[in-house]
């Protein structure tokens, strides 16, 4: 098992190296550089300013040289400064990664807490009224666009009822957990509602598949209680493919949170990475995307380990 984890970590490093080349190359191939963008914001910049600034920011160097310089510094732990935020990249990203993980973690936990029991319940009573209602709820959640739902929640809870803040991460000058929690409620609700439908449907179909298996019929024939059959045997088997979906969802949530973050003015990774790419902030975009990649790769590693826990027949060498 330890050898397996070590091998996967080495593979992760290789993937990150390849990703860094791809990301740097793709950003570099985009038209315009930061100084071109600066020029459109300030028509008073002269030609001399443009030439000087390109030299100051190293943009007069070939892309390969710039990448190698970045990589050399990154290997020594220097990830550079964010051009857009004028701060060391890690200083910018650390709190935002924390915010996103908090937002995603809570949303995912709530979504799973709803999706698993509801999916099992629906699968155990296929085509019943309960199943139909649960399906309706799932399809509604999957169909609602996040930006529309977010605005709706803001109008209801912040504008009409006035009980929750419309956006931000904390009140000015207030540093309390309760205050921060209020700012999380609406973005978490939005992300949860748009996520839960897909997961619920997946749990339901995986359970329906498992419930048709012979070993469950045998268990029932042996007199095992229906509850134990459902949760002890069927759910455990249905969880194996579901864990894969959740691990992949982790990546989707990471990038999909961008809309939610923008709408609620929530400082997270999705929005930061998007702005960094659009603003040609190489350092920030590189490290942000690599962190996102690492998170997804680690989530998949955890999923692989979970398979072994869920199914003792699976072993890693």
């Amino acid at each position, binding site marked *: 098992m330890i050898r397996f984890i070590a091998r996967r970590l080495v593979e992760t490093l290789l993937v990150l190296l390849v990703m860094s080349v791809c990301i740097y190359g793709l950003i570099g191939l985009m038209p315009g550089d930061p100084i071109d963008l600066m020029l459109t914001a300030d028509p008073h910049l002269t030609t001399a300013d443009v030439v000087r600034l390109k030299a100051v920011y190293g943009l007069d160097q070939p892309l390969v040289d710039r990448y190698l310089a970045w990589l050399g510094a990154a290997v020594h732990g220097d990830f550079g400064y964010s051009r857009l935020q*004028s701060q060391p990249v890690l200083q910018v990203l650390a709190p935002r990664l924390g915010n996103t993980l908090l937002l995603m973690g809570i949303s995912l936990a709530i979504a799973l807490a709803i999706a698993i029991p509801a999916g099992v319940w629906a699968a155990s009573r296929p085509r019943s009224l309960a199943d139909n209602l649960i399906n309706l709820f799932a399809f509604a959640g999957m169909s609602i666009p996040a930006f529309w739902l977010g605005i709706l929640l803001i109008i209801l809870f*912040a504008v009409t009822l006035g*009980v929750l803040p419309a956006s931000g991460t904390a*009140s000015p000058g207030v540093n309390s957990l309760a205050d921060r929690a209020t700012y999380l409620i609406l973005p978490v609700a939005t992300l949860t509602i748009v996520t839960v439908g897909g997961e619920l449907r997946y749990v339901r179909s995986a359970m329906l598949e498992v419930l048709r298996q012979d070993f469950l019929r045998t268990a029932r024939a042996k007199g095992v209680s229906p509850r134990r059959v459902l949760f002890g045997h069927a759910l455990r088997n249905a969880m194996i493919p579901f864990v894969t979906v959740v691990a992949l969802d982790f990546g989707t949530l990471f990038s999909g949170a961008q809309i939610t973050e923008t*709408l609620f003015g929530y400082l997270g990774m999705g929005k*930061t990475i998007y702005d960094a790419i659009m603003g040609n902030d190489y350092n920030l975009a590189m490290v942000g995307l690599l962190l996102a990649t690492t998170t997804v790769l680690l989530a998949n590693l955890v999923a692989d380990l979970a398979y072994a826990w869920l199914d003792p027949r699976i072993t890693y060498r």
Partner: protein
Amino acid sequence: MIGRLAGALALGLFLLGILGPSSAANARDQLIIGATQFPSNLHPNIDSMLAKSYVLGLTQRPFTTYDATWQLVCLLCTELPTFENGKAKIEDLPPGFKRDRGTTFCKTADPALATKGIAATYTIQPNATWGDGTPVTTDDVMFTYEVGKNEKSGVSNSELYRRIVRIDVIDKKTFTMHFDRVEFGYNGINDFELVPAHLERAPFGDPTTYRNRTLYSTDPTNPGLWFGPYKVTSMEPGSQIVLDANPTWWGTPPQIKRIVFKTIENSAALEANLLSGSVDYIAGELGLDMDQALGFEQRHKDAYDITYKPVIYYEHLTPNLDNPIFADKRVRQALLYALDRTALTQQLFAGHQPVADSDVSPLDWIHTDDVAKYAHDPAKAAALLDEAGWKLGADGLRHDAGGKPLGFELNTTAGERTRELVEQVLQSQWKAVGVAVRIRNEPARVLFGETINQRKFTGLALFAWLSSPENVPFTTLHSTMVPTAENGWAGQNYAGYRNGAMDDLIDCIEVELDRGKREQMWHKLQALYAEDLPDLPLYFRAQAFIFPKWLKGITPTGHQYQSTLWAEQWRIEP
């Protein structure tokens, strides 16, 4: 079961009540400003963006600026240096001195002026003090100059620093700047924004890393960085900046004790924040776009005071004059005659965005109405196109003698709703006179990063210019400013406009010190522009300021020197 549900609901509502937003209790000695942009940093000279100059208007003062009447005024200085008050003098340039922009010079001006400069003497406000109690002195002036002229410091706009030949310190509060040219704007040093020598000298030890080590980025709440009516007391990058009244401010004490600058990039969410009370005021400079503001006004006009201010953003169509279609002036004029720009601004912007006749704003003192106008006249458009050899065919399109149809591409920024609406109006009105337009929009970074600045557009490009009061259009209209591969795509004359008469006017306006004579030259320039149409003028944008009823004293300026420069006049009324 029902009882349990009711209990859970009651508990939920109770918790919501406890955890409700603290902004609901927002006392009326603070103002929360909502904006759609956050400054990249707060250094006054590194990077330029609207959000930064908006915030810096609260925390410091430039020596000079344009006020709401578009006149140059002193803020940090005590008196504008002029020839009349003896604080400005024409002087010889040092022998062998080479001007930064010495390629062209007014042919009709005294040739001796080409080797002259101007010395202008400024005195710093006597009580001006940094937030830590250190007086603002000429040490700061000299240090700022040192940073500005250092090529490695990362200062974005260094043109002013290149124009300064040297600075002589007279005493702790008085200095003389020697400029490398004689020009009418000699006493305006709006871009000379002070940085504190006593704090910034250490990070400037290595100029190549200064832009990362400056205290404006590493310690923005250091009171010694600020000398305006407010100082930064808290900053959450990307989200909000809290500014409290600065006790060392030398001017009228501000009535509002705390200002929070809060960024919500999504404008629909920004509107919802205003309605929920999380934001008090949406600044026009960084707020809702026009159609959103008009919609907001319809729904909530009784609850807010809404002011529309035309601004210096000049929305226009730039033709690529290398395209033979646009090389013919008659076609350019016909295209403008075919448009009903008055109806366009009336229908789309409720008439708040004035139709443009040239690139000079009607709010600028140099503006004239005595120029060619292009009122909607499809018959005249058709006649001009006929005259230019584009005849109407059976297919409803115009063709040249060789049968080639009259058509071109129209580019603008993809996703910008207002421009996309305008494009559709233009397309249909040109179609009515037999001109086929293909709309091809691109993301802003592609459009401005390559298509426009490398002149890759083949038809018309729809975008806006931001300039300043009495701005000489050297970079946009002078024939030496056409971007080419040979000059490294330098210059912003994207149309490729080359007219000797326009070059002469630009060169001569710059060196004309007599305001009356200069006004005449400006009128000629606008007349030539309207006749020649190097760009097709559409309208000047307007900004919507959405004030709560209790907020008074904010005067939009209409130019890039923003309303926050007079924040001490803002007041809260019951």
